[in-house]
Every structure is written in structure tokens, then in C-alpha cells.
């Protein structure tokens, strides 16, 4: 992904391929006119390679022929690596898609999908389960999901009762307040946690990771994320209208309140499902939508699917690194933040499309 370079606003350089949509130059190749074919192919390629990346039988790479010879290798690939790889893809797609939706709905490019109390609520729920509810993986996930939604509900109720600013500003403020509330709760729980057994567990969870994922978790995540992304994908052009002012959206026949609520609901559901299983994985939902808009233009008809695809690739690559680089596991959230922040800085320092024209 570090080879991605933006040129002339509508082109995306991935390695030596040049991808463009819309006003493609006559010289542009077939791939350039079909950027989604390129991105999907890249995703499938990374997906295939990921099956053979890991620390068995030796660090970094497993020869594909081993699959035919070794029963243990087959077990490992199909029961451990495959569900984890697929969950990583869904995680990236959900966070990046939800981030793209929320940035447009809230008309604010700095919003990320967990900000309405969802991420901090999930963190609190997980910490509570680790300390008080016996620390079984399923219980932790259920408690995280419950408190993620509680965070959303509290943000929503608080926003309704705030006496300040417009609806969007009230939601943002309420999200900040509820997140602060839960993060102080997490702080308290960490303070009272057993420093040898529970505290490392909580810390690890808060940094995010997919080490505990099996087919069961994958199915649970897929059941929520795939329909949610389906709704968002179907309404992708409509999303543009929701980023306009209320007055203009109204004059164009949009029921802004209802349509925003629907898209917000499915985005939060996808985010909560992912966070409950994987912990708090930062930066994907913030940076990938920016990357997609820079590469394919703002129009959500193109930038939303691009966001989803790039999010899947980004999360998968980060998770491959998380489980391969080191003997133990590097928490996924650390890698997404590290790589995300570097990418973000590089993207912001590259020539903005505006100054070229």
C-alpha cells in the first residue's frame, strides 16, 4: 500500500498501474478505466497470499505444497488462518465503509466510526466483562457489543436534549461527552484490575487484535457487516446528497433525517459488531475514506466502494504483519495506527489536486 501515490486527483498509482475513472485520458489502459476490477483483484491476490503468510512451519512463509503433504498445515490454514483473514477483510471494510458514511453524514472529514460513544463503550464493556463477568471470549464480545450500542443510545439521547447548535454539532458534542464518560470508566476498571492477570488482558483488548477469531466469530461478524455494507453500497450516490446542507437536501427531495438515521444505524451496527470481536482498531475508519476520495474523487458513487475495498486490503495487510512479524502477536491497533499515521502524513504532504489546476 505504500506504493499508492495520487496524481491529478482522479488517478491512483498502485505500483506501475495507473487507475482512473470518469475523465480518463485516452492513453489510460483498461485497468485505468476499471479501477474496481483492479482493487478487487488486488484484494483477492492479498487474500490468497495471506493464507501462506505466518510463522508456521517457519517464520514468514509456508510453501503452498505443504498443504497437500501435511495435515497440520491444512488444519492451520483452513481453521485458523482462513477465518481470521476473512474477518480481517470484513473488519477493514466495515470500519472504512462506516467511516466514509459518517464523514459524509456529519459533513466532517475528521469523524471516525466509533466516535459516537461506540468505541469507548465497547472498551468499557470488554473491561467490565474481563474483571467482573469471568473473561470468557463470548461474554467479552457480548458485553462489548452491548455497551457499544449503549454508547450510541446515550449519545443520541444526550444530543436530543442538548440546547446548543444544530443537530450535527449536538451529535458530535454528545459523542465526545459519552466517549469521555466511558473512557473514565475504563480508567477506573484498569485501576481496580488485577495487575498480573486482568490488566494485561484489558490493555491487549483495547489495542485491538484478531488472535481469538474462529469460524464462529467470522459468521457473527459477517451476518451483521455484509447486510450493513449492502445497504450503504446501494445508497452510495444518495450519500452525496446527505453531505449537503439540510436546506439544499430538502429542496432536492431528500428526507435527510430519515435517510441519515438509516445509514447511521447500519454503520454503527457494523462498527459495533467488528469492535466487539476485534477490540478497538483505530485509524482505518479515519484514513481510508480520505485515501479513497483522493484517489477516485469525492463522489461517493466511486469513493465509497473504493473505501470499502481499500479498507479490506489495508486491514488484511496490517493483520498479516501483526501475526507474522514477531514471535508473539503485535496488537492490530498498534499497526493500523502506525501505518495509518504514516500514510496519512504522506498523503497530506503530497500535492493536493487543487493546486495542480
Amino acid at each position, binding site marked *: 500500500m505504500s506504493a499508492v501515490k495520487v496524481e491529478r486527483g482522479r488517478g491512483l498509482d498502485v505500483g506501475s498501474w495507473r487507475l482512473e475513472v470518469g475523465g480518463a485520458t485516452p492513453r489510460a489502459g483498461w485497468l485505468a478505466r476499471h479501477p474496481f476490477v483492479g482493487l478487487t483483484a488486488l484484494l483477492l491476490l492479498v487474500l490468497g497470499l495471506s493464507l501462506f503468510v505466518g510463522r508456521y512451519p517457519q517464520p514468514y512463509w509456508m510453501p503452498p505444497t505443504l498443504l497437500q503433504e501435511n495435515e497440520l498445515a491444512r488444519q492451520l490454514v483452513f481453521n485458523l488462518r482462513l477465518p481470521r483473514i476473512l474477518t480481517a477483510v470484513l473488519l477493514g471494510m466495515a470500519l472504512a465503509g462506516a467511516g466514509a458514511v459518517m464523514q459524509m453524514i456529519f459533513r466532517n472529514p475528521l469523524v471516525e466510526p466509533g466516535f459516537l460513544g461506540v468505541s469507548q463503550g465497547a472498551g468499557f464493556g470488554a473491561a467490565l466483562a474481563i474483571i467482573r463477568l469471568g473473561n470468557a471470549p463470548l461474554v467479552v464480545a457480548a458485553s462489548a457489543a452491548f455497551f457499544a450500542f449503549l454508547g450510541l443510545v446515550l449519545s443520541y439521547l444526550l444530543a436530543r436534549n442538548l440546547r446548543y447548535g444544530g443537530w450535527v454539532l449536538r451529535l458530535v458534542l454528545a459523542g465526545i461527552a459519552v466517549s469521555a464518560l466511558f473512557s473514565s470508566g475504563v480508567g477506573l476498571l484498569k485501576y481496580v484490575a488485577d495487575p498480573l492477570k486482568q490488566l494485561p488482558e484489558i490493555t491487549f483488548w483495547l489495542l485491538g487484535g484478531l488472535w481469538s477469531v474462529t469460524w464462529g466469530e467470522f459468521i457473527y461478524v459477517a451476518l451483521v457487516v455484509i447486510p450493513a455494507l449492502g445497504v450503504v453500497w446501494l445508497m452510495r450516490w444518495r450519500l452525496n446528497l446527505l453531505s449537503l446542507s439540510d436546506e439544499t437536501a430538502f429542496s432536492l427531495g431528500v428526507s435527510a433525517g430519515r435517510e441519515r438515521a438509516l445509514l447511521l444505524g447500519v454503520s454503527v451496527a457494523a462498527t459495533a459488531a467488528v469492535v466487539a470481536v476485534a477490540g478497538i482498531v483505530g485509524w482505518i475508519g479515519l484514513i481510508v475514506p480520505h485515501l479513497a476520495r483522493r484517489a477516485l474523487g469525492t463522489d461517493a458513487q466511486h469513493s465509497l466502494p473504493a473505501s470499502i475495498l481499500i479498507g479490506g486490503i489495508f486491514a488484511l495487510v496490517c493483520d498479516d504483519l501483526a501475526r507474522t512479524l514477531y514471535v508473539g502477536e503485535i496488537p492490530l491497533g498498534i499497526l493500523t495506527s502506525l501505518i495509518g499515521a504514516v500514510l496519512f502524513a504522506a498523503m497530506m504532504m503530497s500535492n493536493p*489536486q487543487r493546486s495542480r489546476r
Partner: protein
Amino acid sequence: MSAPNTRSVSLSDLRFGYDKEMPTVLHGLSLDIPPGTITAVLGPNGAGKTTLLRIILGLLAPQAGSISIDGKPQQSYSRQQMSRLIGLVPQSEYVPFDFSVLEFVLLGRAPYLSPLAMPSEADRQIARDALCSIGLEHLQDRPTPSLSGGERQLAMVARALAQKPRILLLDEPTSHLDLGNRDRILGVLRAQARNGVTVIFTTHDPNLVAVTADYVVLMRQGALVAAGALAATLTAENLSATYGIEVQVIRWDGHLFVVSDQIGRESG
């Protein structure tokens, strides 16, 4: 009283206030606007002009009184029907993302697309035509936020034209425009009116009204001062009542010119 088919927009005894504690914005406004005409709503800042446009659009509901569009009550239209009937050009608009000008104008096709549909090549062509008619086609690939204030205002007009409305509402359409672009907008508005579109715009510039409008509505603090055909309504007496200062109307070469008495006295 005129027959229903000769009234495009008909307001009767409208009353409106934003809040119980705030003063009423409109009290008892009645008005009939014929189709295919240009109507200017003229008044000082805070007279309730924008509020009036929002009520016609249906964004605000009046506390009393009724609005009918093409002879039928406003409430009898669905949201989609309304959005095909009435287009709005707001005074200014904050665009948080780098939509290209063409993508921005294409959003005007929303009333003709179902919530799950994508714009077709025909929609794109309509958007390009709208840009051409406003003389903005050379900017179609530019990011909208990088446009100047005047260019952005033209882009908003193009978006409303892509909407192909029967009634076009414009809030201070020339506020950011230089002389050339102002004339271009006025030309577009006249062409729209010739094609049967009812154009209603607000302004606080009486001279703009004098060269553009067929009908004029004078408002002061939510009340109607006068309404009617241009020549009969845009009088020194009415304008003085609207603005609360002495105003003169000069007729020269078939055109009306409005000067405040202050300026008239200095130059004379």
C-alpha cells in the same frame, strides 16, 4: 380574483414566527404569482424574505394561512413531486468535500432518481447542459470548494437548472457576482421565465429589481408593503415606506433607476 391555472404560487394570509419568544416574521401575507414571470421580493435585511422562500419551498410550515402551488394545496404534493416542481438556489452553501463542479451540479438530478439509483448518462448530459447554459462548462472538473464565491453561486444556479423545476426560488442570487456574471444570471432567469418557469428571487437591491422583474413584492418586517406589476409598485412612495428613508425613482430611457434621497441630494 384570477383563475387557478393563471396562478403558479398563491399565498393567502400567511403567518409565521420562528419561536414563541421571538417576534413574528410574517404576519398576514397574501400574494398571487402568475406562471412564467419574474417576481422580485425586495426589502431591507431581516424583512423575512428568506423565510418567505423557505415557506414556499415547504421547509418551514406557516403557523396560519395557506399556500397553493399550481392551484393545489402545497400539502397535497409528495416530497418528490415538490422537489421536481420547485428548485432552490440558497444564498451561500458550505461544501465540505471536494466534489467536482459536474458532480455537484449532477446532484440536482436527485428528484428524478429513486433512492437506490445512480445518475445515468442522460442525467450527466442534463447537468452538462445546465453548466453550459450558465457558461461554467470550462470549470466542470474543478473541485467546487476551490471556486470563487461568484463561481460557486453560478454552480448552485446550474444545479437548480439541472433539477428542471417549474418554480425557481433564488435567495440573493447576485450577492457575490460581478457585473458580467450578474448579467449572465439575469439572462438565464429571463430565458427560464420565457420557457414558462416561475422565477422568484429575493434581493435588497432596488435597481436589480428595476431591470429584471415583472412583479415586485415589497416587504418590511414581515408585512407586505405593496405587491404588483413593476411600474405600478416600484414607486418612490412604496420604496420609502419599505426602507424607512426617502427614496427617488427616476425614469430614464424607458428604465427605472432608484436612488436614495441622500445620494440624490449630494449629487444634485
